[in-house]
């Protein structure tokens, strides 16, 4: 197996096998010039992963499988997307969502349920969707907001 090494800001030098690469033909939203990523688990047994760019060392998005927190989450994947990354009705696909945690405030963690990442597990082609007029929030709070917050 031919492996390639990449420099990353968070993980230093990483070694990647071709089969590990997840390819976004159109990039992540806002980052059209970085098509290739790998998933790096935050820690052993953690549900959180970093989607590390292989072209921009500093770029790594924190992602998680959203159904861990939102069991009934079921974004609609439209036909154009299905064709673009080669998903059919029968193909199982993996969904991740982008996680945000304001610095020093882990209780305020949110998931972007309006911009899920869909991965075709066999070809490892992927796309970040934009769910328009969706019931899903861009900043879905995981923990309930405190009833009253000290100023």
């Amino acid at each position, binding site marked *: 197996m031919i492996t390639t090494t990449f420099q990353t800001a*968070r993980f230093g030098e990483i070694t990647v096998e071709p089969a590990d690469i997840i390819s976004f033909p159109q990039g992540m939203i806002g980052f059209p010039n970085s098509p290739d990523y790998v998933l790096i688990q935050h820690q052993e047994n*953690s549900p959180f992963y970093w989607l590390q760019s292989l072209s921009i060392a500093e770029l*790594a*998005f*924190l992602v998680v499988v959203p159904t861990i927190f939102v069991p009934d989450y079921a974004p609609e994947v439209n036909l154009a997307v299905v064709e673009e990354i080669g998903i059919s009705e029968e193909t199982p696909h993996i969904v991740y969502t982008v996680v945000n*945690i304001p610095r020093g405030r*882990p209780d305020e963690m949110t998931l972007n349920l*309006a*911009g899920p990442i869909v991965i075709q597990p066999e070809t490892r082609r992927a796309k970040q969707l934009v769910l328009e007029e969706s019931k899903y929030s861009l900043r879905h709070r995981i923990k309930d907001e405190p009833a009253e917050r000290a100023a």
Partner: protein
Amino acid sequence: MLVLTRKLNQSIKIGDDIEITVLEVRGEQVRIGISAPRDVVVHRKEVFDQIKQENLASSEVDASDIPDL
């Protein structure tokens, strides 16, 4: 930026296969119809920008803030 004036039900063609039509004008709201090939992605700019912003913020998360589950 190219600026064109259109009336109700008039259209603009972009290339051969994209057509944008003014469907309704009501006060400050304009309803626009877009017909484009399926591989052309069309979004409201605000939603796109917000997702971009969420992506950017996510890439700046401090790993020490990630909860253990």
